[in-house]
């Protein structure tokens, strides 16, 4: 497993040259560093390699998860990706490979926000994975107000709770509202979020407040970090920290005409 993770990281490092980027700090990815994402996919034909770590303190102890991810702009306005979340403490192991597809319908207009949909599949495989594949769908809307933007995410997870992975499982129902504020001169984004989720039918809602920051380190590298507190969770209230790096690149061999 760790070979796969480091292999992915090495792939990104070796393909480091070419890039769109520079304003990727404003392109929100789910969980990086807050759960909400914006309605914009990565650029057509761009790859994005992400490595995120989350540390969670619960009433019963601590839990940490490392999640390497690779996304690709497959078509205009559409991206696909894979994630490999790994639980690092008790019961450590792969929490089931994940695959997702993301599609954006429109740029913002005077009357409509940017709108996108996303579908995720969490597959069995690994000690922390679920018993069966589960599917989640999400609707995303982004509206900007100058340097401030808001993002509304609504999600629904299919399948029984018993089939879901032990970590980073999609809730049965989830909703989040996030706002971000850009510092243009410093290539930095500040984020605040409120979200709620219900994991099992009939259970109480859990509520989370989160804050985070994204900063462009180089034209191709973004650093992010965040903190969140959750109340109403079955296992007790939690506090979590997350940080990560994302790196955008392209592979010239995939271009028409091949590498220069």
């Amino acid at each position, binding site marked *: 497993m760790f070979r796969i993770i480091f292999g992915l990281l090495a792939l990104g490092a070796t393909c480091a*040259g070419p890039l769109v980027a520079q304003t990727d700090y404003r392109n929100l990815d789910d969980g990086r560093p807050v759960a909400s994402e914006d309605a914009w996919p990565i650029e*057509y034909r761009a790859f994005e390699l992400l490595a995120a770590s989350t540390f969670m303190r619960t009433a019963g102890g601590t839990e940490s998860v490392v999640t390497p991810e690779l996304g690709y702009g497959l078509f205009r306005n559409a991206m696909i990706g894979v994630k490999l979340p790994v639980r690092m403490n008790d019961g450590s192991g792969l929490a089931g490979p994940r695959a997702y597809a993301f599609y954006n319908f*429109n*740029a913002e*207009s005077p009357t409509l926000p940017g*709108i996108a949909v996303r579908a995720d599949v969490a597959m069995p495989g690994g000690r922390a994975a679920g018993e069966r594949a589960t599917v989640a769908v999400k*609707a995303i809307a982004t509206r900007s107000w*100058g340097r401030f933007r808001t993002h509304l995410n609504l999600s629904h997870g299919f399948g029984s709770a018993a089939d879901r992975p032990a970590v980073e499982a999609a809730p049965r129902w989830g909703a989040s509202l996030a706002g971000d504020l850009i510092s243009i001169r410093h290539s930095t984004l500040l984020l605040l979020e409120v979200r709620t989720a219900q994991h099992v039918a009939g259970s109480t809602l859990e509520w989370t407040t989160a804050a985070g920051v994204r900063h462009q380190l180089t*034209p191709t590298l973004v650093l992010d970090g965040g903190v969140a507190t959750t109340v109403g969770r079955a296992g007790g209230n939690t506090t979590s920290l997350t940080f990560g790096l994302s790196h955008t690149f392209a592979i010239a061999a995939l271009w028409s005409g091949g*590498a220069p």
Partner: protein
Amino acid sequence: MKRTLMLAAMLLAPALLPAQDRYDESMYYPGSFNWQFLKQYPDAARLFNGFDYGHAILYERLLTLPRDRATTALAGDFEFLTRDLLVKPPKFSIAEEAVMPEYARLAWPAKQAFDWAHLLHRQVYDLYADERLTPAARDALIERVTDAYLANSHYAFAAVPKAMSLMDDQPFSQRFRREQVRFNGLIWSYHWLQVGLYEPFLAGKTPAARREGVAQVVAHFRTMLADSTRYPSVMPMTAAVAPRFSAAHPRTAAIFDNLHMMHDIISDILASPTMSRDQKRSEILSQLAEMRNPSRNVMEWGHWHMMGEMMGGVGKMGGVAVP
């Protein structure tokens, strides 16, 4: 039931959004040359981030404010740009839609067309700044990135020189340059540097000479910046300001002239006091289609090479970048 409604809403969404602009962000042509200009010439490269801000705030002001308030706001923006932002420009590109949210929502395809052409600008700087490349390899790559640019046909400006009448002789033409003389001069000084910076890379015979040449061109730009009486009084044309580059890569040079003409055309449309927002959007998209069309309203290449003399001399454009 809830699941069915949610899935139905997601599936129906595309049908409900037929007339919307598409987001359409694309990666530019990859290669290890990318980012060499920022790495080797950070002081020059960062200026373009400030230019992006200048273009963005200009369009937002013209679109959202009546003339008198736009004039006042642009006077403040001019001071900010010339005394602050261009003195210490941002390290990385700016998110223009954060500076011009109303304009971006009104004319997203035009914003995308500018972004796409600005990426080509940067890639050509990157190729010239990459001393690992032989001149032949560099020139071949400039043609290749130009091909990659043109392949994105939804947003690529024509690779032939378009008629100057498109900029100067339409019902809305020349309003901005007459009403906002100083800010227009600042924009034209940007355009002078954007094309002029290619010249020292072609004129310099050694890496040291090229570096010195870039420094001199940037210094000339800063001299202009400090004294608005030295701003170009007519739009800088690439063939006149950067004759070596224009001879080596005429398609690319023509794209940049068309880009710069489109900047002026949109400024004029946005400055129009008689058009509604819907009319402005419609006119911008119509003009964008025209500037992408390589078969209508084009100029003879011979005329294009003589534009310096035909428009009153290259001195009015800011001068030849490297005499």
